[in-house]
């Protein structure tokens, strides 16, 4: 009985697995860089990492909510490319239309693609992997068909502020617009997932779709809605990527969906669905870009970087999975102990009553 608080602490600690991995990766690269005489842990460096991670956070949120309902969205990168390529002409510098028009069009198109994904998954019963994979092919192909080998270059300066804008800088640490956007998105989705019934329904649908359906949740509608949200996030991320690159091209974000899946898993989401905390996405994205930035400052050759990246990702997901399982074990133990205690108390009470 005495070790209950200790166990509770351990469970809490294991729940912070993403943070542990983040600290571990950061200190690893600080030490390695430090050995070579490079100061990795500077404010400006961290600011750069977080700034880059912010872009991925947007994609990651979109992926994470789909993973929450037990699906997967492989079309995200293609949606980012397709929507921005199609409306990119209106985003160019000399364009006469208001910037808001293409932005709304792009987000709307994202919603439409998400709706199609949702319909394929729910009504046509196509597994999410295949449905979104087909959508990826279609979107990417159409993007190439539409633009051929051209690249839409030099976009509206005002629009580019969403990716390049700086708000304040405190001693080298610059707070940029993407950070604010990513933070807002995280907060928004946190509120949706944790504070509304919709969020509860999403978790429930992911954890056990049959049980959710029998308890009166319209799981089809929830799933479609989640796919729509995911694609809208992808389209939005596309806007941010385009704004950063200052050009729209059909080959944009070729591996974004994979990066998003990786950060979701590092962030503690389970592929089976129904489990995960949206803040983990931020941690996952920071981990991925810390690895990237760390290797860049070490000036590793690019072919070695893929190797290190692959290995570290496997290790990170392994550690996370391990800690999560540990946490569940401890929590189960705690639950059992609590029930035993309660039963004992009840029995004692019964004895007293009799006495």
């Amino acid at each position, binding site marked *: 009985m005495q070790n209950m608080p200790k166990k509770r602490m351990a469970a809490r600690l294991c729940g912070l697995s993403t943070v542990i991995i983040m600290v571990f990766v950061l200190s690893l690269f600080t030490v390695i860089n430090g050995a070579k005489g490079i100061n990795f842990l500077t404010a400006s460096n961290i600011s750069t990492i977080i700034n880059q991670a912010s872009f991925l956070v947007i994609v990651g949120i979109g992926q994470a909510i789909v993973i929450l309902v037990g699906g997967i969205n492989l079309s995200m990168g293609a949606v980012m490319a397709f929507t921005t390529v199609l409306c990119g002409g209106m985003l160019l510098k000399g364009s006469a239309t208001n910037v808001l028009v293409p932005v709304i069009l792009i987000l709307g198109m994202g919603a439409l693609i998400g709706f199609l994904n949702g319909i394929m998954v729910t009504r046509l019963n196509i597994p999410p992997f295949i449905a979104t994979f*087909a959508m990826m092919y279609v979107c990417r192909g159409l993007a*190439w068909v539409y633009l051929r080998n051209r690249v839409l270059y030099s976009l509206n300066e005002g629009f580019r502020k969403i990716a390049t804008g700086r708000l304040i800088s405190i001693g080298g640490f610059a707070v940029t617009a993407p950070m604010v956007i990513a933070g807002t998105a995280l907060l928004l989705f946190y509120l949706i997932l944790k504070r509304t019934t919709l969020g509860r329904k999403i978790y429930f649908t992911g954890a056990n779709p049959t049980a959710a359906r029998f308890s009166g949740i319209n799981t089809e509608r929830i799933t479609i809605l989640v796919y729509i949200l995911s694609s809208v996030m992808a389209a939005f991320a596309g806007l941010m990527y385009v704004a950063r690159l200052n050009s729209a091209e059909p080959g944009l974000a070729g591996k974004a969906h994979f990066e998003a899946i990786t950060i979701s898993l590092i962030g503690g989401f389970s592929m089976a669905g129904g489990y995960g905390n949206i803040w983990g996405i931020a941690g996952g994205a920071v981990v991925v870009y810390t690895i990237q930035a760390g290797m860049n400052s070490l000036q590793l050759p690019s072919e070695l970087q893929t190797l290190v990246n692959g290995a570290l*990702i496997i290790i990170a997901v*392994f550690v996370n999975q391990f800690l999560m399982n540990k946490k569940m074990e401890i929590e189960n133990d705690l639950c059992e102990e609590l029930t035993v205690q309660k039963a004992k108390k009840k029995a004692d009470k019964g004895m007293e009553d009799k006495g």
Partner: protein
Amino acid sequence: MAKRKINIRLSDFPNSTYVFIVAFVLASVIVPNFFTPGNITTMLTQACVMMILSTAMSMCLMMGCIDLSLGGMVSMTGVIIAILLKNGVHAGIAILAGIVSGTAFGMFNGFVVTKMKVPPFIATFGASGIAQSIANTISQERTISWEQGSHVKLVNLLGSNILTVYFGPRPAQILSISALLLITVIIIAIVLVLFKKTTLGSNVYALGANEETARLSGIDNVKWKVGIYALSGFLASLAGMIVMIRTNSLQPTVGDGLEFQAVVAAVLGGNSMKGGKGSVPGAVLGALTLYTVRNAMSLWGIDTSVVMVVIGCILVFGMMLNQVVNSLAEKRKLYRRAEGREA
């Protein structure tokens, strides 16, 4: 006693049979140069790699896993064989080295998935990065070619045609069966026999349907999973060898994206992503379907990006067709059961 009827049911064939037949007939009718012996030869030779890879992928999918490192392994093993050939090692030893390395890499995948309990999707994705990186490092990101000599005799032998049928003088009228195609067919046949005649098939299905139940009923899940991943690596290394022999040189990025084509082929063939279902011949036919469509569209002079869109659409329609066939079979089964009860 009732008369024994020979009835062939729709569901007896793998699902992709219909998609393949539709695609093949349409291509033959619409595209003028498609149904010629020469073109069929080209198509089959091109499809060799994908047929082998889709076999490997369908085994993994049936087991409820996925192997996204297939493409990376093809690059890696191809580069290993090619670099050994370039340095004058005997072709037999070089190919053996490639196959051993591929199998070992597959076992590594299996280890990560079973022992470290990393989800297969992300484990093999990370592994594909590792394999690709090994390929790039060894080859220094350059195309590898080798000089002719006595040590590459075996390669030349494997690259030759074993049977040539002349329907006419023009190249389009010559049907030739290459040794590579024969190897592919033999390998797939061996895998099929193993799958049907040994416990391999039933164990894979059992693991895919419910791993816990399979484990409790005495199937060593770790051993089988590692085994299947090793088999997948083995097949990938054979695919790497075939690519290398066919193109007579090797680019380190040759395997890029092949794993996804393999997934498409396997899924068109009726494999479910959840495991416990599917067939190897279906996956092979799925691969043939993909290459039929590609070949026909490139003969027609259609842009590759349009081909991408078309393949995406075919995937969706193929899945829908699969479901229609499945539900018809299901209905028939129910109907028959009801009949049996009445009688």
